[in-house]
């Protein structure tokens, strides 16, 4: 494990104090009971199959002024920033590649996760997310339009409260559209956490954590699925599953996720349309200003001409 020697690091065998707090020592069933209340609602008031896309969703573009396109997405407490940069020639490559390439990088902020501090060096988790992000984005970008060039997509996760891959894909799709990269369709993603019979759509961190833990009863389904879709084309661009579940469960999850991915599309569309409207308004305003300036200039010219002629 590479360490950052410019900072103070704890002893090698030290563990977070949180491990000894009451919250940490809860058993599986206690944790499970904490997730749902008697009415079958989750901790943040959502129903099981209710995603955060409806009322806890916020997205905007043009976050990073230096980037060609950028986006910020917030699913209540999961927050991700994405920036997309101009195409540039693929570095260190001898062969000509017919298709353009995407370079994706997902990074967690050091303070983004509730339990442990993230290190600066990219860990296996981040690398896996980067690969998944690239896999998800590749089918949607018209890569034949920029041969031998690569587009850089950087995602920075500011806060992680579950479904960070889905948030990263949504943000990246929006940022690519904002950067005016030619795309086949709007890309959206969603995840689901499976714990036994229950499916938590768009899970929070606590739900994800429990879904990854081993259930007490042998043979129960558990795990997390993330799926990204091109909704208009009805194509799945990436599908990642981890855990252990039977086929019926996977099939059911695919159906739920398909619906949920479609639900996010209007949100993204709204942002994009708003962008276009703003752009047109801005242009109108600029044109008007230019016209005014020209008129003023012309008036001045007339004045001078008269002065010259009279003199």
């Amino acid at each position, binding site marked *: 494990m590479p360490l950052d020697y410019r900072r103070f690091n704890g002893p090698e065998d030290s563990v977070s104090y949180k491990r000894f707090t009451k919250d940490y020592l809860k058993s599986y069933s206690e944790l499970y009971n904490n997730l749902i209340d008697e009415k079958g609602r989750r901790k943040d008031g959502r129903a099981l199959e209710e995603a955060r896309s409806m009322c806890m969703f916020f997205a905007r573009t043009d976050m990073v002024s230096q980037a060609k396109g950028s986006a910020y997405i917030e699913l209540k407490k999961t927050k991700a920033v994405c920036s997309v940069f101009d195409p540039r020639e693929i570095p260190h490559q001898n062969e000509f590649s017919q298709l353009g390439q995407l370079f994706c990088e997902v990074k967690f902020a050091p303070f983004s996760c509730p339990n442990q501090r993230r290190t600066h060096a990219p860990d296996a988790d981040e690398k896996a997310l980067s690969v998944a992000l690239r896999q998800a984005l590749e089918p949607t970008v018209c890569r034949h339009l920029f041969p031998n060039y690569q587009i850089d997509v950087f995602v920075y996760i500011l806060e992680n409260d579950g479904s960070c891959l889905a948030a990263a894909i949504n943000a990246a799709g929006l940022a690519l559209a904002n950067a005016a990269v030619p795309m086949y369709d709007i890309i959206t993603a969603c995840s689901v956490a499976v714990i036994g019979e229950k499916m938590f759509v768009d899970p929070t961190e606590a739900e994800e954590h429990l879904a990854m833990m*081993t259930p007490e009863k*042998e043979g129960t389904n558990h795990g997390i*699925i993330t799926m990204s*879709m091109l909704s208009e084309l009805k194509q799945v*661009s990436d*599908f990642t599953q*981890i855990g*252990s579940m*039977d086929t019926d469960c*996977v099939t059911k999850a695919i159906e739920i996720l398909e619906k949920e991915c479609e639900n996010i599309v209007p949100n993204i569309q709204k942002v994009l349309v708003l962008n276009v409207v703003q752009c047109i308004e801005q242009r109108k305003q600029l044109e008007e200003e230019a016209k005014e300036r020209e008129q003023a200039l012309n008036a001045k010219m007339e004045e001078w001409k008269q002065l010259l002629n009279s003199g």
Partner: protein
Amino acid sequence: MAGLLLSETEKVFILHGVQDDYRSDGRSNIDYRPMELETDVVSHASGSARLRLANTDILVGVKTEIDVPKPDKPDSGRIEFFVDCSANATPEFEGRGGEQLASSISNLMQRAYHSSQAFNLKQLCIFEGKQCWKLYIDILILECGGNLCDAVSLAVKAALFNTRIPFVKAALMDGGNVDLQLSDDPYDSKLLDVGSAPLLVTLCKIGENCVVDPSAEEESCSVISLIVGVTGNRQYYTQEEETDKKTMEGKCTTIAMHGPGSVAPKTLKEAINQGIIAAKSLDEALGQALLRERQENIGFKKHSYGFLK
């Protein structure tokens, strides 16, 4: 796979073959090519296996070490995968060329083995909260002829089946530290329960259908492949006739997609089902081969082939 050129008509030929469930080498869509498997090939490892599937050659060695368990899982051992793509396999792996492929394979294996229903890490526990076994699984890719994930997962399962972990003879508590005495006798050791360890099946989408174990020609006809990790069935890995015939259904432990294309949701569902069927027959065949090998090992009848083939 350099220099493989296929004309449009050849591609159409392959596609039509896949449509009719009869491929150009005579296999059906869920058939594998013949494989060679030998266990116990490396003497310095606790368990090892070598697998050759068509032109892909994998060597897996399992090393065991005593380690401290993770604080959040005091009663389970640890398992780690390392993939080494040597430049012998293909010149593309030279330098840091194979790094990305290696990390993606090891990541996939780690994910497939994550669930305790796939591989129970509790069997690696020695002393709860203090000591556990850590398995280092080193995967060496000697030759790369496509379909790496499937070959790696098969070889890993075979190597784990072959792994022997020495018994602990005595434990001394010295203050807060534990002092362990291990048995020196190589036969005084326990075997791991790997029956449910997952196998990865790569499904290559050609036209509307998916095929397992694609040849190089078939791979070039496809833009997307789906990798499904399916748990094994313990029944295939024991000699005893189990009284309760609880036929464990294969469960998905990991699913991933690979390649620049995309699939329709309907195809995805079909492919997952197809993957589970293929994994089941693969698992059964592997179990039989491993049991036969162990039988020969016990009777000292085994003829060692090694790499001299």
